[in-house]
């Protein structure tokens, strides 16, 4: 009833003196977990690189090196590089499908992988990797992990970020923050080397490429611009090498073997100019030629990001190399030539992301904050308009958290429903952008075309996750979505998996529920108090008394730890204040029909909301 914006993803970290928190680099090829010890981040484990491979052997799973051993003998049960599939649909991965030895099913909304008689989602597979990292960290740190910062490629879109967050939840981790990988690397570099100035972070991993430009000054690291390709990495080079040496094949075992050999050759060429593995030979010039198309793509992204940042390459103080693929001399030569300077690689490019994430986890858990990180939205967020064009509400490279509100109108007389199609991408047309969600605002009173005022608000939080609100201003009808269902898992699916997961203790769930209900209750309480104060004239003595009683009851329930009691008290408050809410709505509607000015109607309908609205009468979204 009361229109206020609630914030998603309230963190529920306990306020203990020093929580046990970690930073996790969930990579395409390898994953790492790190932790801050005595003010410095360190990676955990004797062999800190855990191959991002999961082997399903019927009853259980194996993760990491143990799983890798099954790649050639059981290619259909040994899942690697699933990061390329997370938050994506089948049509998004058509180009790499032929070189994936396991079986992809699902649809254009979400991919599944067929393993034996069952199907698993990339979210579940990623959760297995995260569980392995979590248990390692718990063993080494001697107790449960209370929170984690998980890194994602800067160029991951909303669906991919949501899916990664879901994987964290599924692994029983409290995800304190999703952090962009190049930003994490910059944190590790900046703090370790005391670097100041403007740097490019060139991050080429197994399956993703990011290029970010950051300004590092005292106390603030600001991302100026970011770009990349979330489906481009060393994996593609492995596939190109395999295809050149062994041709294409439909036999999964042959594909798996070819890729293992190709990768071994590529890695060997880091140290020597000619390498031979399993009878196959490759030299560095061959590698360079095979890598060229991939490198050209990275070059194009680099030029665009410099332009977005309004900088020339001579303005850069340095280029930082991140990601295992930047170990290759072929890649280093290319970067040196592209930027005209010797790239920095003095921190281990495989570890630097996890180290930066650990620093951020420590900060979020109450540790000393040496820098504030200002990250950005990688891809513009928009809404579909009549005719399939996209109106951008938030432009790429806007600092997060951020928000935008625009007002749209109906295009047909007596239109009572309003479809809202949420999109992400830079292209002008809806079909060329990533579809994030569709929802409908219903119950618009019949009016002539162009009369209704539908206000759409996009809010992006510090994780880069989007939430959308829409309301019709003359009636106060509201619809809102937390963008997510289109490509990843639905909330219900995640909940069901959580319930099934025995690692996820019941009491944790209770705590989470309690925190969620408390936040919601807090929001309602403050909104109600504010409305009582601003619209006193609409408040009868009865309703005021009933409302006050219900508010007291809610405050009491919030002090306890029964989340259902809180929810019931919220419902009771809703009920008690219903006549008041109705009166406010009526006033808004009447004002509209009595020919008052639009501004007055808005002021009433928006419940004293401080926003100023502007007409945007170009025919609303379909």
């Amino acid at each position, binding site marked *: 009833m009361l229109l206020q914006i609630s914030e998603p993803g309230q963190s529920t970290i306990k306020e203990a003196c020093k929580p046990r928190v970690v930073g996790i680099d969930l990579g395409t090829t390898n994953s790492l977990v790190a932790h801050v010890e005595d003010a410095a981040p360190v990676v955990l484990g004797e062999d800190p690189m855990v191959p991002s491979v999961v082997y399903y052997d019927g009853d259980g799973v194996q993760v990491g090196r143990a799983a890798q051993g099954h790649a050639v003998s059981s290619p259909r049960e040994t899942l690697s590089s699933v990061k390329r599939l997370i938050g994506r649909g089948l049509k998004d991965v058509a180009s790499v499908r032929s070189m994936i030895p396991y079986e992809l099913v699902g649809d254009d909304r979400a991919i599944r992988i067929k393993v034996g008689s069952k199907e698993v989602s990339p979210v579940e597979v990623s959760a297995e990797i995260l569980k392995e990292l979590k248990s390692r960290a718990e063993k080494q740190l001697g107790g449960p992990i209370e929170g984690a910062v998980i890194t994602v490629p800067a160029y991951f879109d909303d669906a991919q970020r949501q899916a990664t967050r879901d994987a964290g939840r599924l692994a029983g981790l409290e995800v304190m923050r999703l952090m962009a990988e190049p930003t994490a690397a910059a944190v590790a570099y900046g703090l370790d080397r005391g670097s100041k100035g403007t740097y490019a972070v060139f991050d080429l991993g197994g399956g993703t490429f990011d290029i970010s430009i950051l300004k590092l000054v005292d106390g603030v690291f600001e991302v100026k611009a970011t770009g990349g390709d979330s489906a481009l990495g060393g994996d593609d080079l492995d596939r190109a090498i395999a295809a050149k040496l062994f041709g294409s094949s439909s036999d999964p075992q042959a594909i798996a073997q070819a890729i293992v050999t190709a990768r071994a050759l590529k890695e060997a060429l880091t140290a020597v100019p000619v390498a031979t593995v399993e009878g196959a030979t490759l030299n560095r010039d061959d590698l360079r030629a095979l890598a060229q198309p991939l490198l050209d793509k990275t070059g*194009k992204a680099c030029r665009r990001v410099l332009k977005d940042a309004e900088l020339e390459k001579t303005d850069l103080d340095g280029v930082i190399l991140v990601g295992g693929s930047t170990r290759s001399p072929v890649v280093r030569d290319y970067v040196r030539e592209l930027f005209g300077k010797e790239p920095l690689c003095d921190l281990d490019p495989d570890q630097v992301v996890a180290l930066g994430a650990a620093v951020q986890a420590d900060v979020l858990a109450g540790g000393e904050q040496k820098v*504030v*990180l200002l990250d950005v939205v990688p891809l513009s967020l928009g809404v579909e308009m009549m005719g399939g064009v996209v109106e951008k509400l938030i432009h790429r490279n806007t600092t997060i958290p*951020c928000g935008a509100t625009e007002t749209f109108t109906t295009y047909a007389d007596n239109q009572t429903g309003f479809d809202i199609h949420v999109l992400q991408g830079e292209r002008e047309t809806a079909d060329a952008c990533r579809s994030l969600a569709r929802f409908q605002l219903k119950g618009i009173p019949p009016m002539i075309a162009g009369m209704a005022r539908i206000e759409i608000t996009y809010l992006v939080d510090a994780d880069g996750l989007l939430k959308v609100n829409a309301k019709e201003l003359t009636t106060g009808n509201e619809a809102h979505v937390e963008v997510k269902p289109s490509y990843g898992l639905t909330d219900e699916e995640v909940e069901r998996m959580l319930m099934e997961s025995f690692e996820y203790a019941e009491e944790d769930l209770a705590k989470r529920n309690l925190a969620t209900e408390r936040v919601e209750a*807090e*929001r309602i309480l403050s909104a109600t108090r504010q409305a009582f104060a601003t619209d006193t004239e609409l408040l009868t003595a009865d309703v005021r008394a009933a409302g006050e009683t219900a508010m007291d009851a809610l405050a009491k329930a919030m002090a306890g730890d029964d989340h259902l009691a809180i929810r019931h008290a919220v419902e009771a408050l809703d009920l008690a204040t219903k006549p008041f809410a109705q009166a406010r709505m009526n006033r808004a509607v009447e004002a509209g029909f009595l020919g008052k000015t639009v501004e007055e109607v808005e002021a009433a309908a928006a419940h004293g909301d401080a926003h100023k609205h502007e007409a945007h009468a170009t025919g609303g979204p379909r």
Partner: protein
Amino acid sequence: MERASSSNSDAFGLLGLPAQFDLESSAIEQAFFDRSKELHPDRFASAPAAERVAALSKSRALNDAYQILKKPVARAEYLLAQAGIKIGENERIADTAFLMRVLELREELAEARVAKETALIERLCNDMKARRKDVVESLSALFDRKDLGAIKDQLIVLRYLDRYLEECDAALDDED
């Protein structure tokens, strides 16, 4: 395109800057960094829920304000809007000579694009960037004279120039 950002009721005030067009970009950035150090959500990660929510929305308002003020053209449009002058989506100017010139330049660009004459595209692009820079610089004097009508005209001119520059980018992307 008209936009009401979520909380831009006083972008200058949020950044602690005087409400004027002439501002050094380094001063805007410094003000933004200083305020960010106080308001960023990370600083409130272990604060009570209500405070976290408040910090998030303040930080959002600050970022939105920075987005408006850091670019001179957006800053000028914002100042004009505060003075009650809005520029509509398809607003045109009466200067036919200017319109003709833009039309010619667009044709020239389109031809260069079809012929894949990268050097010519780059020259057209650089010429337009120089021209845009001149127009942006001219705004300063107009703001000094408080000539709102002239400012509005120049901002409409800039929309034409920006649209042209977008086409330049698209043409250069073909080449890439």
